[in-house]
């Protein structure tokens, strides 16, 4: 394997980690506030479709972004209604949202474009293009660092940089702001938050909406930056890999970045080498596909430290009667 191959795998890692990272942070906000969300996949998918569809019609990636995020937010409101307002089962609500997105995207795509459940290919302004970071030219001559900066770090879409900036931002919000403290508290002990005179419902809705926003960005990135348009079921289980990464990271922002980079790396390797020959054994592609899920099961089995979810996760808060 030469340097160019390694650089291309690392570049692919960043590209493929981005949607995972955005979705993982989305789940982090929601679950830290005590609302389980297995509907990350669905919100991502619906955002992918509406961003690609509207970008194709309007000819602008930015209008597409607004539409995609709006669609994800609508599903987030449904999740909030079901799991916060009407105290329904959060997991079942997530399942419903995934199917709703899977069905609606194809239905609307067929109705709008008649292309067998896809959108037209995006090009030019309708797509988020890669940005060339400063210093690329300056560093081009420097051995190793030059190609590394030019290939791996530079050249991604704006949303990719936004995703990685969202990691310190999430950390700061969670651990350095009043809102973050309350958000974490409402996921551990909502009764205490309520006693302090803070609305549990409002906090949880805020978390669910932030989750919708980030899932929306993940979907927009998928359809308008990573690919050039929407195809049926294009999220392809990424919402669940993000969920796996969230457990892997034990619900912490920096670890979430580590976990999604690892899973993005695995996807990047699997894309480049369908059959990975390690000399002694040939690793089948299916094994690499399944690796994120296998690793999560191993983590859950407690062999690599225990993953303890937020204590009030999955249960609706019922106010005591005075």
């Amino acid at each position: 394997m030469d340097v160019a191959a390694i650089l291309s795998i690392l570049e692919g890692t960043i590209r493929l980690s981005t949607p995972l990272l955005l979705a993982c942070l989305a789940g982090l906000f929601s679950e830290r506030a005590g609302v389980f969300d297995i509907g990350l996949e669905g919100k991502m998918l619906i955002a992918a479709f509406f961003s690609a569809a509207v970008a194709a019609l309007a000819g602008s990636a930015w209008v597409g972004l607004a539409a995609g995020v709006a669609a994800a937010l609508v599903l987030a409101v449904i999740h909030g209604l079901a799991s916060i307002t009407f105290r329904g089962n959060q997991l079942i609500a997530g399942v419903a949202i995934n199917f709703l997105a899977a069905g609606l995207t194809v239905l609307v795509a067929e109705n709008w474009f008649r292309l067998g459940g896809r959108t037209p290919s995006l090009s030019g302004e309708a797509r988020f293009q890669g940005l060339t970071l400063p210093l690329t030219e300056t560093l081009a001559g420097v051995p190793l660092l030059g190609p590394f900066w030019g290939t791996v770090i530079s050249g991604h879409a704006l949303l990719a940089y936004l995703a990685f900036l969202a990691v310190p931002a999430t950390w700061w919000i969670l651990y350095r702001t009043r809102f973050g403290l309350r958000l974490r508290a409402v996921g551990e002990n909502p009764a205490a938050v309520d006693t302090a005179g803070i609305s549990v419902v409002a906090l949880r809705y805020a978390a669910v909406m932030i989750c919708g926003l980030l899932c929306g960005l993940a979907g927009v990135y998928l359809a308008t930056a990573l690919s050039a348009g929407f195809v049926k079921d294009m999220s392809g289980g990424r919402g669940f890999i993000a969920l796996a990464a969230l457990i892997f990271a034990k619900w912490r922002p920096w670890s979430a970045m580590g976990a999604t980079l690892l899973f993005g790396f695995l996807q990047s390797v699997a894309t480049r080498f369908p059959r990975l020959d390690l000399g002694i054994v040939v690793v089948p592609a299916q094994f690499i596909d399944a690796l994120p899920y296998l690793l999560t099961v191993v983590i859950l089995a407690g062999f690599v430290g225990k993953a303890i979810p937020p204590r009030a996760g999955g249960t609706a808060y019922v106010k005591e009667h005075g």
Partner: protein
Amino acid sequence: MQPLPKWADATLVPLLSILIAFAISGVVILAIGKDPVEATKVMVTGALGSTYGWGYTLYYATSFTFTGLAVAVAFHAGLFNIGGEGQATLGGLGVALVLLHMAWPHWSLALLAAMAGAMAFGAAWALLPAWLQARRGSHIVITTIMFNFIAAALLNYILVNVLRPTGQMDPATARFAADLALPKLHEMLGWLGIPFARRTPANLGLVVALAAAVLVWGLLWHTRLGFQLRAFGKSEPAARYAGISPVRVTLYAMLISGALAGLMAVNTVMGEQQRLVMNAAGGAGFIGIAVALMGRSHPLGVVLAALLFGFLYQGGAEMAIWMQIPRELIVVIQALVILFTGALDNMVRMPVAWAFRLLRGGR
């Protein structure tokens, strides 16, 4: 506040939920520029208007009964098994291995063996998530989701690299011996002198599914294990206090659930496809969730809900052919049914309870 009468809770609330789900589906059909009344007509004629339509409707309903019962048994123990899809996939593998690698003198013996294989493999795929939940406290929803993906990758690997006959292009096993085919519904009805369309996939699996529903009913309400399961599902601390072992109940509930999901392969892999293909479960594992929710986890309700989804599936296929409405409409209806009967249950129940209170108060 007085609770709802039992009959209203069991029938009125789910019926209202389905009505809302269907009403919204009608709006969706309108929104894509089609006529919902026309669509309903096409669905009813296509799925129920001929014995041919019924053959497909019953075939789908058979699969959904198995996966619905699987989800329902786990629900009774307070467990949400999203892994039906993976367990059914593994069940298919069990059926294929039994039928490919042993010589069977008669289909009836092969059926018993295939059932055993399907149940063993399905249950085995549910065992590890169950054990992790019972012993390690890891959430069964997460582990069963992960196991669905692992099952898909495993089946993919096995079909491509192990069970595919040499020289065959598509990733699938060889065909099973022709004399091991299960009797089709038209043959069975023919023995009774009832005419039925010949070219439908409905088969003896239907009888197995109905028997499974009766057995699940007996298990849940007439055995010690069933009582323990339901007690554990209602209140874990109370069950613990009564000396019921949480580990034992969790393991048994998930093993039975996995076995039921696996049994679906008898209907599809042995009864229809006659070989194991990629994506053999085809989403039926997930429809089981909708079926169990709508059927209120009661075996009778599950059978009726499975029939409804069988109708939707076959009707949806007809609608796709005759009205150019994509089949994905069925996925939307499925999502709405799950949403309203499962997650927004309280939204439907609150006004009903309010109406009942008003009626009582008026006297």
